[in-house]
């Protein structure tokens, strides 16, 4: 009963997001569209809090959840109400960054769950051995991929948004050095390689443990012994992603900030969608991907409205600094 109600809540959420976005793109219905989306979000959140269950278990820690919701709501409403009209874009950037950080934190927690062998939801005892095993280890790989993606994109978006916020604020000056693009590329390359290694090494370790256990025909899935350094590499990837977010936005001129914020906005959307994969959660998936694709198109449209190309804004950022500065 509960879980089917929750599915309906998620369905309503997804539909309102689509309808809301559609209405937002028309001046006459825009304000109503925003409310429609907000209502859908409310339903999805309340549904999750009260109806979500995994393996027949309800959520715990209601005190913490409601505490967090309350604090967030109060700060959010006050900040959004008090901000001056002219400071709106930087506020949007800040909120966007918060969403990115949220995705990042989720990934960190889930990663720790994964490597410390969180109690598996799959059967612990025997037979159908190979099948169960292999699908478990493959799950680990896929899950890890989604976790890493969510973390990387979320932290890039978080760091980038904070920098964008600072720039619109005038607190952070443009900063560019020669060969910055090369440095950026190198950082990105290292992030990708390190992530690939984390996924590979974990997959390897999982398999080894499983075959060992199989040999002794006792099967305790999930009690994996990860290679020692894997946690450190994960946090290094986290740090590098944050660095990349900073480096990515730093050289872009203040006048181009709205475009960048829109781009980071769609990044956060994708990070949210990774969460959707992680929890098999359709609202997170539709909401995130919708924003990801709509945000990307919006970014391009904004560039066009400013008579610039996206490539110009991002790659030609040195020129951007000069014209905008």
């Amino acid at each position: 009963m509960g879980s089917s109600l929750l599915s309906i809540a998620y369905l309503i959420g997804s539909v309102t997001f689509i309808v809301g976005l559609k209405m937002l793109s028309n001046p006459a219905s825009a304000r109503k569209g925003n409310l429609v989306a907000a209502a859908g979000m409310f339903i999805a959140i309340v549904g999750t809090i009260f109806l979500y269950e995994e393996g027949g278990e309800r959520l715990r820690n209601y005190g913490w959840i409601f505490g967090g919701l309350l604090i967030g709501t109060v700060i959010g409403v006050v900040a959004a109400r008090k901000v001056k009209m002219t400071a709106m874009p930087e506020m949007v950037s800040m909120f966007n960054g918060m969403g990115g950080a949220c995705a990042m934190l989720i990934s960190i927690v889930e990663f720790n769950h994964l490597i410390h062998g969180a109690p598996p939801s799959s059967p612990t005892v025997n037979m159908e051995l190979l099948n169960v095993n292999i699908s478990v280890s493959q799950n680990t790989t896929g899950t890890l991929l989604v976790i890493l993606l969510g973390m990387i994109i979320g932290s890039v978006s978080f760091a980038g948004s904070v920098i964008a916020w600072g720039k619109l604020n005038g607190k952070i000056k443009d900063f560019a050095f020669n060969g910055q693009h090369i440095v950026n590329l190198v950082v990105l390359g290292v992030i990708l390689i390190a992530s690939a290694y984390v996924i590979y090494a974990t997959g390897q370790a999982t398999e080894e443990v499983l075959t060992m256990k199989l040999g002794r025909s006792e099967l305790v899935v999930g009690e994996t012994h990860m290679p020692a350094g894997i946690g450190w590499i994960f946090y290094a990837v986290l740090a590098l992603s944050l660095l990349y977010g900073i480096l990515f936005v730093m050289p872009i001129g203040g006048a181009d900030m709205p475009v960048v914020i829109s781009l980071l906005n769609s990044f956060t959307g994708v990070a949210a969608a990774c969460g959707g994969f992680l929890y098999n959660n359709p609202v997170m998936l539709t909401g995130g991907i919708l924003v990801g694709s709509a945000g990307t198109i919006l970014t391009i449209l904004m560039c066009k409205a400013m008579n610039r190309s996206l490539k110009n804004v991002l790659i030609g950022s040195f020129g951007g600094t000069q014209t905008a500065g």
Partner: protein
Amino acid sequence: MSAVLDFLQLHIEMVYIVILSIFLGIEVISRVPSVLHTPLMSGANAIHGVVIIGAIIVMGKAETDNYLALVLGFLAVILGTLNVVGGFVVTDRMLEMFKKKK
């Protein structure tokens, strides 16, 4: 590699949702007047606040003695709520101003 393919296979319905949503997002937005760019960005910003659901799940699944998960989850809930609530309120204010001007 095969593991990744299997992951896709396992979640093939979600992959379909992803692809359809991409096209939907493009379609829904593609003819928006430029005055609405900023509010739309802000509205989309609020919508990706759905991450809050992930944060709630993390928080709700955390063992009561797992302080790392509790603290990070708590932070995530706060930040996610900020994103959602702040996002919708700011968008509303923008659109309100928009109406007055007209």
